[in-house]
Structures are given as structure tokens and as C-alpha cells.
């Protein structure tokens, strides 16, 4: 087999890794800070918009058969444009995963490993992901299939176990910061759906290409449902008008779980599940970056390139000086970056390519 194939469930779960890994960090809190108590309404609104955008992407890909966005950009602007687009996407994949890695390791270091320099925590993650990538293309997808359902169940478990301390009244006032805040400025919350970045690259690898539409719709809806769960946990437990920022809100929510007096403070178990899902996310992001690189440069064997990309991840994650800088990158810059590349840049390439194809016909 020259090219390995991705099944339908695997594809949906690839897109979900991103949202799970980001939601462990500061994503739910950022959403709530932007739209206050109308966040759930806002997420429903945004899920509908993203489903429509995902369907749009699938429709724009239809005319090109099994091509991914690199082939389309080659068709649009020639080889140079293909290299530029490839470089932008590699940059985006590497930087986003490195920033999240840095923030996660900082949080882990604060809670458990105060005496260890952070580079060793990052090193552990990168070693794990490099080993997994070297074993083959499909390996990390299969492991993802094993791990991700457990991560989803863990969030549902936190939701159910904390149910008795929920204050449903915190969903009011229903319009939060106002109509403009919820539906116009709140559109920026679309950056939570950055998992859709994989939709641009999976068409050539799909085992059943006719299920592409189903994959995109299912992943958008599942992401939205998952986000609603996460946001409700944080909105209903913690006070409504956020004055205190915590480093990992879901972790703090997991600390409140207690069954009687003997089963308390279970947050370490959730931490282990989240570590597994995070390293899975890192492996898949690195893998797709490497496959883009392979397509750009036509390298036959990528085994040694994997080490280089691992070192690159370490280098980028060590770039911010301290937690304040990396949190600033994650909360402020990251969302605009995601929206610009995934929704503006990607969709405009597809639209221009479709226009060119229609002109040529």
C-alpha cells in the first residue's frame, strides 16, 4: 500500500482531538469571558454556522476528486503558490501544537513537578510522539481510536458527578452581554472549531471518499455538543461574573467531585486521561505536518524527518519566556490566527479555485 487509508470513525476522532486538547486548557473560560452567560446560546449558533461552513468546504472540494488543498493551490497558482500554502499550513500546525504543549506542560509542572525544569516535561511528550510517528502512518490513528472515547467519557463523568452542585439559574440573564455581544462579536468564538483544519488534508487518505460529507457534519456537531458540555460545567459551578482566572478550569471542576468521604480528589485520574489525549493530538498534528512536507518536497522516506520535526516542536515551545507570555499567545493571538488561516485563507483558496475551474470549463 503506497498510501494508508483513514476510516470514517478515525477521521471524525482526528478532528475531535483538537477540541479536547484545547478545552483542557483555557478554551471554555475564554468563551465565557467573551459572551458571558449567553455562551451556550452562542455555541449553538456557532455550531450551526460551522456545520454550514463544513458543508461548504465539502462542496467546494467535490469538483476536484481526491485532491487536498495543496493540489488545489497548485492548480490555482502553480508550484510556487503550492509551496507557500504548504509552508503556511506547516507553520500553523507546528505553532498551534507547540503553544498548547507549552501551556499544558506549564500547568502540569505547577501542579505536580515544581522542581523539574519544563524542558524535560516537553521532552517526554515529544519523545512519545516521535516514537509513535516512526512506527507508521496508521498507528497513531488507531491509538486515537482507543483513547479518545475514554476522554469523551471523562468529560461526561465530570458533568454528571458535579450535577448536584450545579446552579441552573446561572444561564440567566439569557442574552448575556447583549445581542451584539452574543451574536456579532461572539462570532469570534468560531476559533473553537479549529479541528476543521484537518478537513483540508484528509480527502486523499479516505477509505470511503463518499462519506466525506458525513465526516464533516458529524465532527462539527460533536464538537459543538462537547463544547456545550464543557462550558456548562464551568458556567454552572463557578460564579457567573468571572473575576478569578484559573489555570485549568476543568481541572478545578474535577477537584469538586466527591462520592462520600472516601472517593475525593480524583483529578489525577482525569489528568492521566487528558495526558493521553494530548499526546495523541500532538502526534497527529506532527504527522500531518510531516505529510504536508513530504508532499511539498517529494521525499520518499520520512523516518528521519520525524526527529527534526520533534526538535522543531521543542524549540517553538521553549520560545515564550514564561507562563504569562505563553498564556497571552494562547488566549489572544491563537484565536485570530486560527480564524484567519482556516476560515478565511482556506475557504478563499477553494472559492478561487472553483471559480477558475468554472471559467475553464
Amino acid at each position, binding site marked *: 500500500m503506497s498510501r494508508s487509508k483513514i476510516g470514517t470513525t478515525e477521521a471524525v476522532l482526528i478532528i475531535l482531538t483538537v477540541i479536547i486538547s484545547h478545552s483542557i486548557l483555557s478554551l471554555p473560560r475564554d468563551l465565557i469571558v467573551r459572551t458571558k452567560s449567553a455562551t451556550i446560546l452562542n455555541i449553538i449558533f456557532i455550531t450551526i454556522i460551522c456545520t454550514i461552513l463544513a458543508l461548504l468546504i465539502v462542496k467546494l472540494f467535490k469538483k476536484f476528486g481526491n485532491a487536498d488543498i495543496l493540489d488545489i493551490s497548485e492548480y490555482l497558482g502553480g508550484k510556487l503558490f503550492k509551496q507557500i500554502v504548504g509552508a503556511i499550513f506547516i507553520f500553523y500546525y507546528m505553532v498551534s501544537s507547540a503553544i498548547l504543549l507549552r501551556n499544558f506542560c506549564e500547568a502540569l509542572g505547577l501542579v505536580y513537578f515544581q522542581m523539574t525544569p519544563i524542558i524535560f516535561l516537553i521532552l*517526554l511528550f515529544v519523545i512519545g510522539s516521535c516514537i509513535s510517528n516512526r512506527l507508521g502512518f496508521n498507528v497513531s490513528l488507531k491509538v486515537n481510536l482507543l483513547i479518545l472515547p475514554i476522554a469523551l467519557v471523562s468529560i461526561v463523568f465530570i458533568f454528571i458527578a458535579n450535577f448536584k452542585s450545579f446552579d441552573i439559574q446561572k444561564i440567566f440573564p439569557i442574552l448575556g452581554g447583549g445581542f451584539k455581544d452574543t451574536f456579532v462579536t461572539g462570532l469570534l468564538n468560531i476559533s473553537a472549531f479549529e479541528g476543521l483544519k484537518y478537513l483540508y488534508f484528509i480527502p486523499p487518505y479516505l477509505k470511503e471518499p463518499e462519506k466525506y460529507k458525513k465526516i464533516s457534519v458529524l465532527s462539527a456537531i460533536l464538537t459543538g455538543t462537547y463544547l456545550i458540555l464543557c462550558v456548562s460545567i464551568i458556567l454552572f459551578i463557578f460564579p457567573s461574573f468571572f473575576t478569578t482566572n484559573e489555570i485549568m478550569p476543568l481541572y478545578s471542576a474535577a477537584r469538586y467531585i466527591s462520592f462520600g468521604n472516601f472517593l475525593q480528589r480524583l483529578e*489525577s485520574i482525569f489528568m492521566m486521561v487528558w*495526558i*493521553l489525549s494530548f499526546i495523541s493530538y500532538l502526534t497527529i498534528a506532527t504527522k500531518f505536518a510531516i505529510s504536508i512536507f513530504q508532499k511539498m518536497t517529494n521525499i520518499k522516506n520520512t523516518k528521519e524527518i520525524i526527529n527534526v520535526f520533534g526538535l522543531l516542536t521543542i524549540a517553538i515551545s521553549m520560545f515564550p519566556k514564561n507562563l504569562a507570555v505563553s498564556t497571552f499567545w494562547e488566549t489572544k493571538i491563537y484565536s485570530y490566527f486560527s480564524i484567519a488561516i482556516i476560515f478565511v485563507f482556506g475557504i478563499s483558496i477553494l472559492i478561487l479555485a472553483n471559480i477558475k475551474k468554472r471559467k475553464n470549463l
Partner: protein
Amino acid sequence: MNFGIPETMSTERPDKACEFLMEGRVIIIVNGSPYAIILPITLIDYMTSPEDKNLKTNFANFLRMLRFIGAFLTLLLPGLYVAITSFHEEILPTELLFSILASRENVPFPVIFEILIMEISFELIREAGLRVPSPVGPTIGIVGALVLGQAAVSADIVSPILIIIVAITGIASFTIPDFIFGFHLRYFRFAFILLGYMAGFLGIGIGLFVYLSVLCSLNSFGVPLTVPIAPKIKTEENGYFLSPIWKREHRASYISSKKPNSQENISMKWKNSYK
């Protein structure tokens, strides 16, 4: 890199070999060796015992679940114990923590050293038990238990809770039907002990991820080891659990056998109907 996970199964029992042959697999018999080699093999097959098909399906499925729990405990229990006592003591209920502290009061060794001593002694007893002549066998067993258990605790070399952990791990390792698979789990729990000691749940998580990656990358003569979960295959007979006898109508689809149906659709009916 395959971590010693076997890709074929070898057995001395004719009924086990025949059962796999009827399922559609290939048996290799070599002149001069008492073992028959069965291939291709998947992870679930390591957890099945030939007697399962003769029991009622509920009991057989219960036993299968028990074996999976046994495999999990064999691999991870000592590592989890070391990780919890080193990094995550808040999980333990307060009274349990205080009884652990009280029992460790006079023990001179740190947790990692204790657990390595006990695990290695257990492996020594296990290996020695294979070559003990039968008249002396039970005596050695009693002496081993007494020496390891009671005397070591009374002499404050190890703490009692550690004996429980090691005993449960040992018993769990005996629930796995296939010898080589059980051996590889026993072999790797030392890696997890070391990882748990070094970095707590982070180390165990990363170790588990690498272990699962290797497990998913292995093929047994073209059949992935972790089918039907990864890759996901929609089948009737491929699940983890046995279906009742009258429902076993298909052979496993990942084997691509020549006759996919082993029984016809409704097998429980009268063959000859009298007018």
C-alpha cells in the same frame, strides 16, 4: 520494535488447535516439536481459553472480562501504586493513607526499592517452583509464602500493603491463558514501575501511549493485532464477547476465510418435516 509481543500462538492441546482451524486460521505442525503454531492471531485470542465455547455465554463473557482486568492489573498495578504514593497521595482516603504511613514507619527502604525487592523475589519463587521435585513442592510453597509474607513484614523489611499489591499482581498474571503473552506483561510492568516512580501519572501515561502504539502497529501475518477496535471493522462475529451458540453464524471477517458462514441463518429448526 515489537516489545516481545508474540504474533503467533503456540499450543500443545489438540482441541485448541482444532477449534482455531474450524474458525478459519492456519495451523503449522513441525515434525519433532510438540507445539502447533496458530496464525493469524489477534489480541482477543490471547484472552480466550478453549473452554469458553463450552460454557454458557454469560459465564464465558464474564470470564473474558475478568481476564482483561487481570491483564490490566498485571501490567499497571505496581506502577500505579508507586505513582500514587510518590506523587498523588490525595487520591487515597485519609484513613488508608494513615494506615500506609503507619505500616511504613519502621521500613528503611524507599517505596521503589521495596517494590523491586518483592517483585523480583516473586519471580524467583515462580521460576524455582517450576523445577522443584514434587514431594518437596508444597513445602517450598508454604516456606516461600511464609518467608515472603509474614516474616518479611515482621522484620520490617517491607510493609504489609505492598505484600497485598504484589500478591494481587501475581494472581492476576495467572489469569491470562496464553503463557507468552502473560510473560510479556510481567516483563513490562518493571518499565511501568520505573516510569511511575520517575514521573507519576505523566510517566505512566506516556508509557501507556507508547505501549498502545506498538500494540497497534503490529500485524500478525497481515491481520492487525488490535482488530476489531482499531481499525474499526463492522462484523457479526468479531466482537470482544461471545454470542450464544445458535448465533455463531459467521466466521471472523478479518481472516478472509473461504467459507464466511459457519452455520446457516436460522440453524435451530427441524431438518426433516413430516407431512
